[in-house]
């Protein structure tokens, strides 16, 4: 069935229907042959919205373009009115077509400048709207959990409780290895949980296992795992929760000290304290003088301080023991840690904090000789300690890098697996269907880790449901004749949504967000996103350029803004709601993500006579499609160089990051771009564009004449 589009034009509170501008808008709408035009009063208000919804239902329209006033328009109201009529709330596109003329009383609306181009642009977009069939996909209900310790155990138990089949892959023999929190409730909890899972039915435990590969994609991964005996098996899993901490090494102060018999980790000290005979064997009969160091090299986390204080309290409880805790920043940002620190001090543990300088020293046969600069006394201190115990910092081994690689992820600069993108918070990874929680993500504390695990479990529930997921079939179309299987799309997809089926790239509808980065990056132009085809954007840019003959259009055709739908569009919308007028000479085309903007779109804009193109993306690392803005940045840089080679000023292509809350900044960015164009002067392509356009129109008119005569 062909689309039936309703075009709803707002005629304002008092009649603006007689104005020439409104008539032109109406003609533009009527020229669109797949639609029907309606005029409604106050589309922006509840009554008008209800009227729109009623008309959509009455005329059995499949989609709608609704012109409304940017000052008032209430998308929430319209989607509610649509749901009230039992319609899809997403079916209507709201366009800012009205304006309140300066100095006029309230309720007097007018057609916004550039409304005609905006409407024809939207109608062009409408032609590409396509509803894809829904399909029921079968997904695996086993979920792989990689890691050991509390977060991994929480995840496995949560999965079991929610009716999924957890496969727990632990790097060592134990499910709950001794941790820093020795002697606290958390350790008992981990031990009890490990026991519970060992005895539970419906859990697969693979101890000392190694992940060899993770093929497929969200919903249907194939995990290849080697167990302790070296036997390899393939498992079908719907999702993966990674809770495995990177291997750690002593967090040594910058100068002089190295790991040794008397320079140990807090973890080792904690286990010595569990068994007093080991402590005696190592340090002789007490009393002991022990130095603890937390965060002396790299920054520590609250969990490290808790571990150190647990050890310190145990030692301080021994008669005549002496404990000094050295740190740079006491990380007390955790539940009741401030109070605990005060209590531990009260129990006789001495805290030494450094602003500059630090701890130096040498290990001897009997212990360690330490020196430090005492800031309050302004003197260098030296003392003997039987033992120095330090926290640990990530020191990723080749095996950890390999695990990351097998998962399709990478180890970050800080040694953890967390990606740079803010929008991967709180628990996502760079690969859809793979969650990163707890010590795999980064430093944290138990509360944060517990929340991350539950957030991941919610993600599993959303992805896998009861084993069947109803989903729109894939929007990513790969032209087999053009595709050379270079797999660029597989590499660039921010969500890891490009799978390979029979070696050919194929998009996974469970993972794809439709950002279009793959289509823009494909060197063979083999990829089109349904609804976001290249032809749609060339059409929209042409429509946005308007026609030379239209009064004022040529003047306005100065800056083409390609705006990200997630950041720049909301920011611009907010700016207009706050009453700010957009500068003239500006045309907006919304893209799903700046990652979709390719060279063709930029060149189309320049060829159509725009003096410059401004790409508005999310800030790098704050992209709503994780890495789309990063790709956009790289592409724009490259394209700028190419423009320079052709003799065109590379400054005509601009890119700027904007957050959705930056309604002031987005206008400043646009004004700056316009100022740059003022400096550069009109584009040399402008005249050519106008000549071409007039010629095209002339020949088109001839065709029309002939067809009428014929």
């Amino acid at each position, binding site marked *: 069935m062909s689309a039936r589009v309703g075009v709803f034009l707002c005629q304002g509170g008092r009649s603006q229907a007689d104005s020439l501008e409104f008539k032109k808008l109406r003609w533009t709408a009527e020229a669109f042959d797949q639609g029907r035009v309606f005029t409604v009063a106050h589309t922006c208000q*509840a009554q008008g919205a209800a009227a729109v919804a009623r008309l959509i239902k009455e005329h059995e329209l499949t989609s709608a373009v609704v012109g409304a006033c940017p*000052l008032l328009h209430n998308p*929430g*109201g319209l*989607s509610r009115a649509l749901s009230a009529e039992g319609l899809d*709330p997403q079916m209507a596109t709201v366009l800012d077509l009205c304006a309140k003329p300066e100095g006029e*009383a309230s*309720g007097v609306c007018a057609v916004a400048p550039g409304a005609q181009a905006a409407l024809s642009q939207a109608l062009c977009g409408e032609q590409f709207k396509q509803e894809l069939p829904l399909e029921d996909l079968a997904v695996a209900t086993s979920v792989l959990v990689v890691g050991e310790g509390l977060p991994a155990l929480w995840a496995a138990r949560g999965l079991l409780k929610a009716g999924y089949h957890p496969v727990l892959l632990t790097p060592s023999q134990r499910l709950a290895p001794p941790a820093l929190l020795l002697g606290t409730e958390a350790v008992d909890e981990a031990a009890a949980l490990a026991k519970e899972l060992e005895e539970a039915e419906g859990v697969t435990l693979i101890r000392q296992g190694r992940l060899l590969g993770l093929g497929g994609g969200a919903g249907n991964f194939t995990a290849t795992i080697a167990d302790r005996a070296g036997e390899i098996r393939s498992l079908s899993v719907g999702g993966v929760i990674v809770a495995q901490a990177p291997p750690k090494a002593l967090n040594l102060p910058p100068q002089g000290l190295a790991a040794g018999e008397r320079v140990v980790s807090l973890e080792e000290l904690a286990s010595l304290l569990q068994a007093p005979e080991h402590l005696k064997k190592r340090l002789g009969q007490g009393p002991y003088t022990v130095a603890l160091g937390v965060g002396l090299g790299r*920054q520590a*986390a609250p969990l490290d301080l808790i571990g150190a204080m647990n050890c310190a309290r145990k030692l301080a409880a021994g008669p005549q023991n002496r404990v000094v805790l050295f740190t740079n*920043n*006491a990380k*007390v*940002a*955790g539940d*009741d*840690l*401030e*109070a605990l620190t*005060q209590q531990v001090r009260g129990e006789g543990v001495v805290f030494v904090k450094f602003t500059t300088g630090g701890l130096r020293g040498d290990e001897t046969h009997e212990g360690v000789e330490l020196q430090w600069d005492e*800031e309050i*006394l302004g003197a260098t201190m030296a003392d003997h300690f039987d033992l120095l115990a330090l926290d640990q910092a990530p020191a990723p081994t080749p095996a950890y890098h390999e695990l990351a690689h097998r998962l399709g992820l990478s180890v*970050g*600069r*800080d040694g953890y697996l*967390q990606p740079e993108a*803010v929008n991967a*918070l*709180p*628990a996502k990874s760079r690969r859809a269907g793979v969650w990163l929680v707890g010590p795999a*993500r*980064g*430093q*944290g504390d138990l509360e*944060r880790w*517990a*929340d*991350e695990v*539950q*957030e991941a*479990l*919610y*993600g599993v*529930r959303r992805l896998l449901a009861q084993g069947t997921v109803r989903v729109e079939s894939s929007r990513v179309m790969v032209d087999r004749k053009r595709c050379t299987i270079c797999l660029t799309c597989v590499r660039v997809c921010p969500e890891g949504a490009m799978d390979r089926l029979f070696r050919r790239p194929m998009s996974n509808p469970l993972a794809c967000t439709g950002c279009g980065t793959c289509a823009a990056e494909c060197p063979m132009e083999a990829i089109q996103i349904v609804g976001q085809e290249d032809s749609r954007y060339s059409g929209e840019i042409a429509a946005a350029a308007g026609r030379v003959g239209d009064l004022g259009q040529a003047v306005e055709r100065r800056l083409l803004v390609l705006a990200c739908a*997630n950041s720049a569009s*909301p920011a611009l919308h*907010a700016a207009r*709601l706050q009453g700010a007028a957009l500068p003239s000479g500006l045309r907006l085309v919304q893209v799903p993500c700046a990652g979709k903007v390719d060279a063709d779109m930029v060149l189309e804009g320049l060829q159509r006579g725009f003096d410059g193109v401004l790409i508005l993306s*999310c*800030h*790098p*690392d*704050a992209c709503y499609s994780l890495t789309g803005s990063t790709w956009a940045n790289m592409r724009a840089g490259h394209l700028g160089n190419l423009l320079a080679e052709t003799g065109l000023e590379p400054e005509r292509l601009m890119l700027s*990051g904007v*957050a959705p*809350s930056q*309604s*002031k*900044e987005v206008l*400043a960015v646009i004004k700056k771009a316009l100022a740059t164009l003022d400096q550069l002067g009109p584009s040399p392509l402008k005249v050519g564009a106008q000549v071409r356009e007039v010629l095209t129109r002339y020949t088109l008119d001839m065709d029309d004449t002939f067809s009428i005569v014929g």
Partner: protein
Amino acid sequence: MGLPKKQVLVIGGGVAGATTALDLAEQGVAVHLVERDDFLGGRAAQLACKALDSCLKCNGCLAEPRLAALTSHPLITLHRASTVANLTGFDGGYQAVIDTRPAYIDAERCTACGLCLEACPEVEAGAIRAPRLAAEAPRLAIDETACLYFKDGQSTVCRDVCPEEAIDFGRQGDSQTLDFAAVVLATGFTPYDPTPASRLGYGLFPDVITAMELEEMLRTQGRAVRPSDGEAAGKVAFVQCVGSRDVNGNNYCSRVCCGYALRLGRALAARQQAEVAVFYMDLQSFGHAVDEFLEAAAGELRLVRSMPYDIHQPPEGSVMLDYQPSPGAPPTSEPFDLVVLSVGLAPNPDNPALAQMAGLDLNRHGFLAPGKQGVFLAGTAQRPMDVAEAVASAGRAAQGALTYLAEMQP
């Protein structure tokens, strides 16, 4: 009384409440969300973007899309300007009385022309307010506590000026009783009020502001200015641990202040070439790539490990900050254009009443503690956390509520 419908009450329309409500609604659960304020958004909607060329990861923008989605989800019923007056448990569910304040401005008629805002003599005091979020509707609301009409009964200038006759002071509020299977409390925190600590000069001197006020200033004006004369602030001090880590006050670390102060400081240094000093006890930042972050901050800002003991501003002069630059050094007095107090996250003053109503306990600092069947907690109602942590905790609340609903007898 029949078995309750499987719908959930979410109290609080900030980022945690919004995330929980969306998570539940996306799983097909009907949600009623009650927000005390006239508009949604809570504290997270006050936060400004602090990005330089690239994102500084303050996590503030995690709130934006979630709050926007909230306004249009068909399974979510929003009760703005509303409070839960009573919550009674009965077998397997809760009955809530939701009181809604009168909407003196008729949203159907109001065209947000802004004439009332221009006419209102008390607009500075917030008598007529506009929302922070672009997706919000209605666009304007009258606040009874600041509006003169509710003091003298005759100041009707806004009503008189409204061309749409949308304002009616005679409108009545509304109260409805609804049944719920589960309740989520996402009632958030309150920024610590530094007024009582007079040595910090807040409320006494115009150019001493709180970090929340700076966030709002950056969000709405795009730059930091001195309130006294509206000039861009060229030299800015941040004072950490205001209302945190205080044995005589809130004896806990608020967890987020070091992070936001360093990011705000870096943004001011980069965007308006401000000279920024941060006065601190311990830098609490931890989490993602923290060494790199602190190194960059140390390069761009002056980090001073010392707490100022007095802040004062002579008339027509800059704010003076008295502190000891390093242990043993003589005290010094330094002028700043703007002093920003990094206020901590204090428990919501309504927590005792909320806890009593929902049958919960308070923890030793006055935050809500979990424990009641069918009642779930999300966000900073439980403890200080950043935006990402609030989102994670909202996911946990949703996950808990969904599991709880599934286990309930049909």
